């Protein structure tokens, strides 16, 4: 096997120092994606800094927000009482992702850092600008049934695969990161990026920065939230389209709404215009249909994923109906 250095960090500081002076060093936690990537020769880090011993697993409530440690397991977050009570949307989204075995290994930070599942990215015999910049995009003229309809570029039309992140972007979460220069917060919506001319870059983390936690501000969405995922089998498949919908209701009227889509873009796709259109309206199928139409503005399909233009709005409506208790 390719030789690499392995180091175990027990503090955030040690972990960050572990990356110093080595642009090819990576953190490893659950390893549910990174190990696959290494086995398939898609990435070959020269150093792995194991951060599983860093104490970042806590889930706590303070100062008007819920803070989830970067190393909290996906299953631990999904089953956490506080999360189920205050942010059921997140719990639902987590349980819609992967398998129980993977959720028991995967961490919150790792979930955010997972790479696309585009088959051209995973086959080193095929072109992929994300894996090998300049080699071309295999999916653009290829089998792009699973690919993006929003925010694509000529360089890359891959989608971000996470379910958890769709709920987090809807819930106005922010990401606390730490680096050699100290801590900073990144709004969740700005954490992942669109491919543009640099599809190899998935996110806006700077060199040697580490995810410390994800923070969700308190909200009034707990009663009316739903994560709706459509996939090719009943479980353990990536989304064709998924929608995270959260409503703050005043009787039958929507006070405010949060809406985000998965399976449609290189990043979790927040639908702010549709949210605005929902605010102040009665929670009816017609309202939802109108919001869905707004949400789909600017969508562009490729040869095999045109169905997403129709499935997308349908899933938005279904997610909102479920959130509003109309189903």
């Amino acid at each position, binding site marked *: 096997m390719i030789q690499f250095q392995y180091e175990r960090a027990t503090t955030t500081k040690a972990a960050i120092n572990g990356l110093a002076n080595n642009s090819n060093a990576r953190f490893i936690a659950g390893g549910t994606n990174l190990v696959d990537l290494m086995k398939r020769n898609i990435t070959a880090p020269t150093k792995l800094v194991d951060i599983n011993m860093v104490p970042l697993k806590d889930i706590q409530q303070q100062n008007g927000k819920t803070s989830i440690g970067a190393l909290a397991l996906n299953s631990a977050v999904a089953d956490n009482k506080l999360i189920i009570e205050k942010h059921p949307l997140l719990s639902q989204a987590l349980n819609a992702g992967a398998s129980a075995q993977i959720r028991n290994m995967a961490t919150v930070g790792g979930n955010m850092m997972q790479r696309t599942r585009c*088959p051209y990215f995973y*086959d080193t*015999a095929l072109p992929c600008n994300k894996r090998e910049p300049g080699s071309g995009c*295999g999916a653009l003229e290829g089998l792009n049934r699973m690919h993006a309809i929003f925010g694509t570029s000529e360089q890359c039309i891959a989608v971000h695969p996470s379910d958890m992140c769709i709920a987090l972007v809807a819930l106005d979460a922010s990401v606390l990161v730490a680096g050699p220069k100290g801590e900073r917060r990144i709004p969740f919506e700005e954490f992942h990026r669109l491919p543009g001319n640099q599809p190899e870059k998935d996110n806006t983390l700077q060199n040697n920065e580490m995810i410390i936690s994800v923070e969700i501000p308190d909200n009034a969405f707990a009663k009316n939230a739903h994560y709706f995922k459509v996939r*090719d*089998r009943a479980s*353990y498949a990536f989304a064709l389209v998924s929608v995270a919908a959260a409503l703050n209701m005043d009787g039958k009227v929507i006070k405010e709404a949060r809406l985000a889509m998965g399976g449609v873009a290189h990043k979790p796709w927040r639908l702010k215009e549709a949210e605005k259109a929902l605010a102040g309206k009665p929670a009816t199928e017609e309202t939802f249909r109108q919001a869905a139409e707004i949400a789909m503005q600017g969508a562009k399909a490729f040869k095999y994923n045109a169905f997403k233009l129709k*499935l997308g709005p*349908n*899933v938005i409506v279904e997610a909102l109906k479920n959130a509003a208790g109309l189903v």
Partner: protein
Amino acid sequence: MNEAFFDKKDYKPLDRVDGRLKVTGAAKYSAEYVLPNMSYAVLVGSTIAKGTIESIDSKAAERAPGVLAVISHLNAIKLPSYQSKGEHPSEPSTKGQPLRVFFDNKIYSNDQPIVAVVATSFEKARHAATLVKVQYNKEQHQTDLEANAEKAVLPASGKKNPKSPTADYDRGQIDAFANAPVKFEAEYVLPTEVHNPMELQSITAHWEADDKLTVYDKVQGTKMTQKNFAKEWNLPEENVKCIATFVGGAFGNGLHNWPHETAAIIAAKQVKRPVKLVLTREQMFTMVGYRPRTWQKIQMGATKDGKLVAINHQSIGQTSTYEEFTESTLQQTRMMYASPNVSTRYRILPLNLATPIWMRGPGEATGAFGLESAMDEVAHSIDMDPVDFRLLNYTESDPDKNMPWSTKYLRECYDEGKKRIGWENRKMQPGSVRDGEWLVGYGMGTGTFGANRNSATVHAELDKEGNLVMHCAITDIGPGTGTAMVQIASNTTGIPTEKIAFHLGNSEFPNAGLQGGSSTVNSVGPAVLAACNALKEQLITMAAAKGNAAFASAKPDDVMFDKAEIQLGGKSAKLTLGDLLKQNNIEKIETTNESKPDENRNKYSMNAFSMHFAKVHVHPFTGQVRVKKIVCCADAGTIVSPKTAASQMIGGATGGIGMALTEDAVMDHRFGRYVTKDLADYHVPVHADVPEIDVYFVNKPDLLADPVGSKGLGEIAIIGVAPAIANAVFNATGKRIRELPITPDKLI
């Protein structure tokens, strides 16, 4: 024949005799044998679909730590069989020349094995394999079935033998369809499917001497493997041993000996050490066969009151450019329904792909998707219940072979299945039943498969403690062969199951064919029966010779055991087995018996039948399909092991759900490479996709087929499931999906 033998009460559900070994990890699969001085091989596959290798740069790989050899056509020893151009050495034969691994620089398909890297550890071999650099001269490949359909050909088997299932077939008048009062015509497509058993294909090859080879190999036939490798290496058969004691699923991909097996044997010869080779999941898509993508067109003519007038059924399936793979896609169209006029046209299309191989329910499952969907479409067009439509066109004898059925209890399957699925809740008008937001639909599909039987031999020995030990070369790829054979032996002798052992999966044991084509219980079962009866004959002779007058006129059926005591005609013979052997001064008695198909096969048409009913929910806005219930009814003759047989039906129905809704090996034809080639992207059904599966067996013996009365059920468990689900989806939505799988995008 002992009447009690066929009393179903006697066949109680029995836990798998090897269940404990399997769940505790004690069962040894082919990759789990540890030999001294073991080395490990990893295969490098081509990255083009057609052309030649220009150069291989293996320097870095050779220098990598632990590497023992980098083997390719440049330095591989040439096998004796590589010199001949003749028939495929493997049996059952597909015509053509199998891929000769490391023979020359030609590339016939993408991910064709071209280099083996052998090292002292698996990890070292895998790493070194990434260092091999290959340059190609690329040629234009063709991998797209539909784009090349006009180049399809009649296979050699069909040209040579007009009675072959692949030959052109016409019954009655060819133009009958044109004059039918009701005419229906449609095309159906089944995508490439991959067997994907849980266990990866693996082999450990060990040259115990220069001319003595042992392979621990994941195969469905130990004797087949022994014969093939003996031929391949020009060795006497007895110098080749194949061990496949446990096989972790196969579904057909172990019916052929593949290039990776030969690659491991070559490697073992060259490094002079045992070599273990395990395919990756990706290589399971390209190196060990698949169910070929198949296009079908059906024309069906009927009278307005539902009598079939004509069926014309044509199909085109993929094969490689070097072997003619064929399957019986259109066979059932000739015999399932009483249409006076039937024509079938079977074609194959050579493409730059690896050779396919039979996958569970092989061609019949593919053909049934066309035939049973078309039956549903015609029934709908004349406003007739699809079960009634089938009953109206029921065949009381085989109209293809012009022979009576040995047995056919399909009517019982229709009747029982309707009750169990709640068929009365089905509405003729699609889309008219709802459960909340979900649309509800019911569908059904029929299946049939030949009640195949091969010759088989079993060795049995019975000791004075009453322990019965049997041996046979047959493999068990999962259905529970050992369990079934133990039950047959127990029922024949009265010996309790825990005192019986059935050893299998070794080419040194007495002869048996492949575990394939639903033939095992029908073939090996009768040999077990024969061996048990032969042991009883010996006991009778011994007892009579020692003055037990009652035994003088006894027949094997009169003799049973109750623990170690011998019973005669249901009463104690006041004689124990131990006493009898002691009197004769022997430790044990033994026998070897062969059982073969008999002349009844020339007089009767022998088929197993199945009927699958499905209830589905379809979400009208998101296109999600949820199968809510499946009822499987099987006329498979005597069910000797009710528990493992039911498991087999459940597995088949699960495979049918995959076929209908999820499985699709998608190829990017620009590169000739699959893009869904792991278990994340190639979707086999998961637990959440599989509902309650209710299994019913008619359980009536077919003693014309074989003395056990069994007709086989591995294939009928899946044949007809996919159309049952597709028909239910139509009933739920009014949408007819003629290209599988039925994914959500096709229904919105």
